[in-house]
């Protein structure tokens, strides 16, 4: 039977998609604007149906460490929070990257710094793609721009995380988390059996069997020569991900003289800006990075010869703009437009900024 179309919030879609993917455990702590994730999971009570654990931890720090424990056993485990809570999780995220543990983390961003506001923001871009926690590590980062992608990226996030034994993050914000749209949820998959997990994750600490030595999951390595080897292995893995897993969308780029570069909710706003601009005869297109790391560097480099200028539109003071500038390496002007602290720009505001910053008469 074809799955029905539902109307729901982005946060709700994450929760339903997690149950349907066959996730083994969710560990979280409520914070606006993402509390619907745990709310919907608690109401759906999947422990009665699929056996999925849903647990409200005593803090964000506990939640991420519960995720570490579950992931060490090869389980599909996840957590979600919003900016201040994600800051608390950074130690755990760095440890998981160091221990090469796959998991899914959802950040429904709000305006910072500090406790900030509860309104939408994209100011955690740097935190997510440049580190956040300590050490040389990378997070596979997916940026959904619709409720449908919120649902779809749960599966994509887990698939990539397990393919590369690396934490993955869905980086979204209060707009996509709180808005309701139509969504087609994925089909139900049953949770994996322990045998299937042992087969898929031979590294998992599920109990030693007679035919192998003990599995050890740790990020600690006191010998620096060995630690350098570990780091080289991580870096080699990151290069493969950068080569194979870049995802993006190109919108009306064929004849574009100017390029908008935006992700998530900002990209939705820019869709309307493109329409308004083209009504005025300004040829604008957009590149929407879907993976923020790995970043579509090569693609943007290719556009540097084709357009007169690029404008990144972000709900922050200018973060992704740095990656776009690195990609085009000075070949074409790259400007930034953003609103701060929870204010969401409107499509015509972006159009005004585009005209001003690109000097379009």
């Amino acid at each position, binding site marked *: 039977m074809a799955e029905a179309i539902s*109307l729901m919030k982005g946060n709700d879609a994450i929760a339903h998609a997690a149950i349907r993917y066959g996730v083994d455990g969710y560990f979280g702590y409520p914070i606006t604007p993402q509390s619907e994730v745990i709310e919907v999971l608690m109401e759906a009570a999947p422990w009665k149906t699929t056996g999925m654990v849903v647990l409200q931890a005593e803090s964000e720090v506990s939640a991420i460490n519960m995720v570490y424990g579950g992931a060490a056993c090869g389980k599909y485990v996840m957590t979600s929070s919003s900016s201040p809570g994600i800051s608390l999780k950074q130690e755990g995220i760095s440890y998981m990257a160091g221990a090469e543990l796959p998991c899914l983390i959802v950040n429904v961003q709000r305006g910072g710094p500090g406790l900030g506001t509860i309104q939408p923001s994209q100011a955690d871009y740097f935190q997510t793609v440049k580190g956040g926690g300590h050490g040389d590590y990378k997070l596979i980062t997916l940026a959904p721009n619709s409720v449908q992608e919120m649902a779809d990226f749960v599966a994509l996030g887990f698939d990539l995380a397990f393919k590369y034994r690396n934490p993955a993050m869905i980086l979204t914000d209060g*707009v996509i988390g709180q808005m309701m*749209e139509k969504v087609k949820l994925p089909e139900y998959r049953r949770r994996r059996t322990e045998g299937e997990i042992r087969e898929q994750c031979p590294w998992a600490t599920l109990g030693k069997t007679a035919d192998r030595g003990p599995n050890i999951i740790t990020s600690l390595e006191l010998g620096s020569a060995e630690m350098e080897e570990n780091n080289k292995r991580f870096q080699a893995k990151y290069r493969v991900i950068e080569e194979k897993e870049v995802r993006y969308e190109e919108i009306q780029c064929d004849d574009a003289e100017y390029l908008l570069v935006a992700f998530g909710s900002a990209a939705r706003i820019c869709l309307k800006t493109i329409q308004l601009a083209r009504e005025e005869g300004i040829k604008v297109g957009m590149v929407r990075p879907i993976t923020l790391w790995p970043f579509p560097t090569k693609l943007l480099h290719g556009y540097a010869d084709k357009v007169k200028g690029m404008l990144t539109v972000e709900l922050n003071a200018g973060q992704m703009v740095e990656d776009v500038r690195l990609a085009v390496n000075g070949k074409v002007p790259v400007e930034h437009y953003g609103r701060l602290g929870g204010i969401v720009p409107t499509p*015509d505001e972006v159009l005004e900024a585009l005209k001003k910053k690109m000097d379009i008469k």
Partner: protein
Amino acid sequence: MLQEIVISGFGGQGVLSMGKILAYSGMMEDKEVSWFPAYGPEQRGGTANVTVIISDEPISSPVLNQYDIAIVLNQPSLDKFEGRVKPGGILIYDGYGIRRKVKRGDINVYRVNAMDESTKMDNARVFNMIVLGGLLKIVPMVSLENVMKGLKESLPERHHGLLPMNEKAILRGMEIIEQEQKAKVTPA
């Protein structure tokens, strides 16, 4: 078809749920819909608002600064959104909460006295459904049948007993607009 709508009023007036029912109704008609609330602390007594878009085409930005239709249910909402109705667009207000006249001359203005009417119906909670009825009489963007389906979909099952009362309120809202329109065309 593209309808870009903002509904704004005090928290507790049923602004967000009215938007939700509209969005559900649009979905019942196989339209594309989006519902984006101001989800801030204003829900607790300040002004709450929600942007609802109903369209034949995929929806681009869920965030807008100009609207085809603004439904304003208190004075701060009128102040905030009157200037943001597209020329030729529609502004619907409830007379109870509004202290000044609408200034714009280039938009169509309708009054639905839903607060008074819900008091007469002895049920303050159907206030938002009276407003919704008024809206649907002015712009029949979704059929009553699909509104009722949408209402059923958006209400938890334990509240389905309230459906007939809500339908009555929607019909009453439609009548109010009908009477207003008759009053307009018939010179006194």
